[in-house]
């Protein structure tokens, strides 16, 4: 389902997801229940509440395109309706709202990806990787079905990595943008664990940024638990301390959250570090070669 499907942004991306092959079965806009969202030949029913939409259509995932003041509430509505996965695309949600949402989600069924993220893509086998599943705003056509998992805080850097892989004829299992905010639902480590368990994923690209220590935690776990080839990149080596670089999460505050410190930990944990953002796919190929893994 798409929360905020009647908005320009939500509607546009609901359409692109349908074109990609995603089963979009419901829209949610309070007060517009009973209306229909039309895209080509596809007609999607709109409901007033998430619970109604889930009950009527069996939708188990929600993509959230609700404006920032109301987005935290939209996530909580998914949690209450016991939706499996909520993907919050919305940028600019107050930190305090996310602190409360994260607390409210403890012990509940719903997993949250985002907010302030491009969402996720599992490429399909059709032309331009259509026939896959696209939840969010990522460009579907740059993907290619295959066996590399990509996890990143940044949208455009994810696309950069995916595109480098696709050009080299290496496909992706799933690409997840976890978002650039300081408080988010799913972190690097959560996705790395899923990639590690996934038999379809043979190699991993981990893209991080300055700020926080989520990448460091993921790297230490990889060292102890993951035998798959892993390449890493950290953006923001040149960012001045104390300045917010677009992403609210990308701000250097302490000693351990600089690019330099994170890259050092990556190296210690056996992650092949991409020297530049142009080097992400090649770094993964180096790691795969060392580990004797053939990527496709």
């Amino acid at each position, binding site marked *: 389902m798409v929360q905020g499907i009647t908005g320009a942004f939500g509607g546009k991306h609901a359409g692109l997801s349908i074109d990609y092959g995603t089963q979009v079965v419901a829209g949610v806009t309070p007060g517009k229940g009973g209306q229909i969202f039309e895209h080509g030949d596809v007609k999607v029913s709109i409901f007033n509440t998430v619970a109604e939409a889930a009950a009527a259509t069996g939708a188990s995932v929600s993509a959230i395109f609700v404006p920032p003041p109301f987005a935290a509430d939209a996530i909580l509505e998914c949690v209450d309706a016991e939706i499996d996965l909520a993907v919050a695309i919305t940028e600019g949600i107050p930190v305090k709202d996310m602190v409360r949402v994260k607390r409210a989600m403890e012990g509940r069924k719903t997993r949250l990806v985002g907010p302030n993220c491009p969402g996720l893509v599992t490429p399909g086998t059709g032309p331009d990787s259509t026939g896959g599943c696209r939840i969010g705003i990522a460009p579907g056509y740059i993907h290619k079905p295959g066996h590399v998992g990509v996890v990143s805080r940044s949208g455009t850097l994810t696309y950069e990595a995916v*595109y480098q892989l696709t050009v080299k004829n290496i496909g992706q299992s799933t690409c997840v943008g976890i978002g650039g905010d300081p408080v988010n639902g799913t972190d690097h480590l959560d996705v790395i664990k899923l990639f590690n368990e996934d038999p379809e994923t043979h190699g991993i690209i981990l893209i991080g940024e300055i700020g926080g220590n989520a990448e460091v935690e993921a790297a230490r776990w990889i060292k102890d638990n993951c035998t798959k080839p892993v390449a890493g990149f950290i953006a923001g080596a040149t960012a001045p301390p104390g300045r917010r670089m677009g992403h*609210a999460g990308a701000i250097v505050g302490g000693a351990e959250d600089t690019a330099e410190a994170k890259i050092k930990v990556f190296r210690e944990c056996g992650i092949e570090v991409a020297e530049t953002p142009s*080097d992400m796919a090649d770094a993964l190929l180096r790691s795969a070669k060392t580990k004797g893994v053939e990527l496709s």
Partner: protein
Amino acid sequence: MNIHEYQAKTLFEQYGVPVPQGAAAKSADEFAPALDSLPEGPTMVKSQIHAGGRGKGTFTNGYKGGVKFCPSKAEALAVAGEMLDNTLVTIQTGPAGRKVQTVYFTVASDIKKEYYLAVLLDRSTSWPVIVASTEGGVEIEKVAEETPEKITKVFVDPAYGLADYQVRELIFALELNKVEAKNAAKLIRNLYNCFWETDAAMIEVNPLITTPDDNVLALDAKVSFDSNALFRHPEIVALRDLNEEDPKEIEASKYDLAYIALDGNIACLVNGAGLAMSTMDIIKHYGGNPANFLDVGGGATKEKVIAAFKIILGDANVKGIFVNIFGGIMDCNVIAEGIVDAVKEVGLELPLVVRLEGNNVAAGKKTLADSGLPIVSGESMADAAQKIVKLV
């Protein structure tokens, strides 16, 4: 968003956090009325700028110290005259310094001991954390590094708020006497409420002090707010001081562009925060120096690209421009048309390297090539970065 110390202290008073009595003055005419509102005796004069290290700072006219102790109000009046409208350089302002446009007078408190107190978000737990230390008035980073046992952290469960036992934990850690403890407990509770209710990103009190009569006061106050939450705090937005912000950054925010000025000479125009950060990194990697961070965002229109060009060219240090666009959904040709229009409008004479990739890229590259403008095309990010570094 940051505010001045005098504004933060007014906010503290509203929340019941005791501060030394004070009054601000924005012009020489306001000095006398401000000082009249304070009792006779030792007075502090404090330059109001959005940067730390004021006490050890130097004015560009040679006058030393942006925060001064004065034995009398008469002396405070003279000192304020030295500070107002002069430019203060501190370790945090950079060499250009900041013009002091407000002076804050406060009663000089008798200090028994200095402490440290802060409230901020702990990213690993996603809970607010209160940080307290017996080592106040010094750099807390140094304390954390050298004597971490002297720092106490209390994590506040957002579902229940600050609990009494947690306040006691902080009080015990600060080794206060009974009267001080009672005063500090109230102050900590009120400071936390202030943090939570105003959507603050961080509140730092360094130093927090005890006085000989066992009062507890916030002697300094540094407060910043979550800019995502400003829509519900018009009272906080009213405290914004545009004098403290880079005019180019203010101009950029009008067009919904995220721009931050840096001290290099290669201007960047990029879509997406992560890509923009790594564009700066790759320039540095190949031996260049980025002049700015600029994210035009996902929905970059022709108007936005033109505005972005004007802003980056407003920086006299810029010797070359690097445009790096990965048009996922965004049409590369729209960007290309924007670049061509912008170059024609501003009459560009600097080297320009453009790397376009993504949706409708062939049309975009054709638009650039057909324009007849001396635009250098980069194949990959690395290729384009090397080209612009070489040209500059």
